[in-house]
């Protein structure tokens, strides 16, 4: 296990044990499963019965990782920010693809646990929390065929003229008796959708004039009117099955509409803060994995009569990678502490979105830069399927697009910087 300069890892035995436990899960379960899933030539095999994907989900639920973001009052693990960061870095070290599946799985239940009451807690959150066999599996439905990363900007005030003109939302909810009817398509980029039983879904409400009349709801997917697409074939993060969802007059009870106007506009940014911290920590894990692969290889591979790591050029590359991994860890961890404090501890829901989004961008960019350097150290072998670095590189590259392209994420952060830099 690597040495951490954060003194809490030495002082807090619970924290160091948590890191060791999660690392064991990442090394013994996630990584081997991810490699098998990554190499499946038919993406549909990833979610077929008997696939390692389901084994990981079962073990993840049995160990309680599906309760990371749930309100502790309703069965959440109640981990601190630093504990959450340590867990997510380890899961990302195992594989960002499966870590993403673990993250999106609980997003709907987490939001319900924070904001809902009554039937939603009893009939949705509690069974979700108590599930240790992966009977339930969640996904997060945001992007649409005509509106990808732009969805992130939907509630950014400076962006409203553009959003209002171009994006009216394709997945719409209209009153249907005492509940809501959902219609429309979500794009093929919905992580875990092909295997999911529920979705935490972004929709628009009447008059559907822009994404700002948005709402967030829970939709059970195993019902009439829902069509789940097949997993798409893609470059990286192949262990994270992504596919589209089409809704045709799908009914949900009124209380499943968890966040409505005017709260949607004010709250969706806070959801992005949590998911951005998740991605920042998980991609830091990928960066570390790539660095460790390169370091290990450089010690065993002999070139010019000595190990690669004895060559100055390689040493310089290793140093650059180390610096990026370390800075990514402590930058994303510090931001996660801020976000967790505002959302889970203080419950003021006023986390700084420019910081949270920058954690995601920084983590992803670090992962891609480190994976690129690492692959270079492997030389030709790095291009083969024989070495993990080839998968890590593809996963890191996919990360620059998935969950919002880093350009659009940066733009959303920039709007916030211009508007509120001196305010908080």
């Amino acid at each position, binding site marked *: 296990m690597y040495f951490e300069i954060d003194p809490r890892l030495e002082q807090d035995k619970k924290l160091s044990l948590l890191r060791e436990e999660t690392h064991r899960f990442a090394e013994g379960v996630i990584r081997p499963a991810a490699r098998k899933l990554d190499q499946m030539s038919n993406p549909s095999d990833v979610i077929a019965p008997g696939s390692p994907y389901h084994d990981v989900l079962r073990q993840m639920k049995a160990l309680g990782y599906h309760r990371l973001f749930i309100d502790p009052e309703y069965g959440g693990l109640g981990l601190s920010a630093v504990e959450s960061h340590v867990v997510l870095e380890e899961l990302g070290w195992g594989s960002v693809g499966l870590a993403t599946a673990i993250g999106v799985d609980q997003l709907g239940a987490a939001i319900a646990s*924070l*904001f*809902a*009451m*009554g039937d*939603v807690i009893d009939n949705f959150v509690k069974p979700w929390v108590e599930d240790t066999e992966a009977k339930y599996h969640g996904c997060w439905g945001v992007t649409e065929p005509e509106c990808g990363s732009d969805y992130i900007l939907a509630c950014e005030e400076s962006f409203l003229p553009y959003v209002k003109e171009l994006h009216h939302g394709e997945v719409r909810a209209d009153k249907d008796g005492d509940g809501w009817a959902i219609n429309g398509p979500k794009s093929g980029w919905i992580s875990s959708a092909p295997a999911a039983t529920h979705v935490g879904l972004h929709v628009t409400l009447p008059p559907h004039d822009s994404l700002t009349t948005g709402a967030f709801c829970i939709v059970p997917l195993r019902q009439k009117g829902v069509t789940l697409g097949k997993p798409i074939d893609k470059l990286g993060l192949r262990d994270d099955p992504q596919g589209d969802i089409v809704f045709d007059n799908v009914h949900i009870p009124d*209380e499943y509409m*968890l*966040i409505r106007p*005017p*709260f949607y506009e*004010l*709250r969706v940014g806070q959801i992005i803060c949590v998911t951005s911290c998740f991605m920042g920590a998980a991609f830091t894990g990928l960066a570390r994995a790539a660095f460790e692969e390169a370091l290990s290889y450089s010690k065993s591979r002999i070139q010019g009569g000595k190990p690669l790591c004895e060559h100055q050029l390689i040493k310089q590359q290793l140093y650059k990678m180390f610096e990026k991994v370390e800075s990514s860890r402590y930058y994303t961890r510090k931001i996660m502490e801020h976000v967790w404090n505002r959302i889970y501890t*203080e*419950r*003021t*829901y*006023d986390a700084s979105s420019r910081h949270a989004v920058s954690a995601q961008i920084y983590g992803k960019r670090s992962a891609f830069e480190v994976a690129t350097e690492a692959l270079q150290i492997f030389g030709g072998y790095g291009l083969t399927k024989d070495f993990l670095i080839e998968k890590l590189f593809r996963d890191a590259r996919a990360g620059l697009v998935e969950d919002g392209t880093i350009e659009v994420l940066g733009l959303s952060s920039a709007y916030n910087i211009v508007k509120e830099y001196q305010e908080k």
Partner: protein
Amino acid sequence: MAVFPSKEWVGAVLVAAAKSDKYKEAAKDWEGDFLCIIEGDEEFLKDMSRKKVLEGFMSFLDMMPAKARKKFAGTPMGDIFEKKLGIPLDASVKDINVDKISGLVSKLSLGDLKGACTYFWADFWHGSVRAMEPVAPGEHSNAAFKLSGKYSAWKMMVSGKQDTIRLIMSNKLKLEGDMSYVMKNMKGVITLTKEVFASVPIE
């Protein structure tokens, strides 16, 4: 334990707010008054059939001048007082036979309560509570914020059993006004509930 709402509860809340440094700090930037609307429900009926609660509630209404109380005439709450319970709107709590009235309340149905509301106005200003008092229908209708909901939801909020945001987002309480201002000053709202309201145990 105090009755919500009652003269005793209002007094205890004002004292708690004045004493709480946490509240003063958290709400130091807050400017804005609230018109609070408590709608009758099943729990209201159940509670008001208890003599202590009824007495407390009457003491709350008694804080209003008789002239203001008369403004309830013709409203669902006014009709309950005058027609169902036989209480003149300008009567003082001292004039009321609590034994008899609590018995009559226990015979009311949910249908009788339809549209029946009690109102209070609270003026929060830079970490202090400048006023908290019952008001008549139509008074302070231009308050910066309007918070309404069933009696049971109000009790969950003021007792601290449920956080304000969850109650608002799950439609148990309805908040009208500049929502982005509330969201930016959420710490003050949460501290008011946790440190001030919840410090006054209620029946």
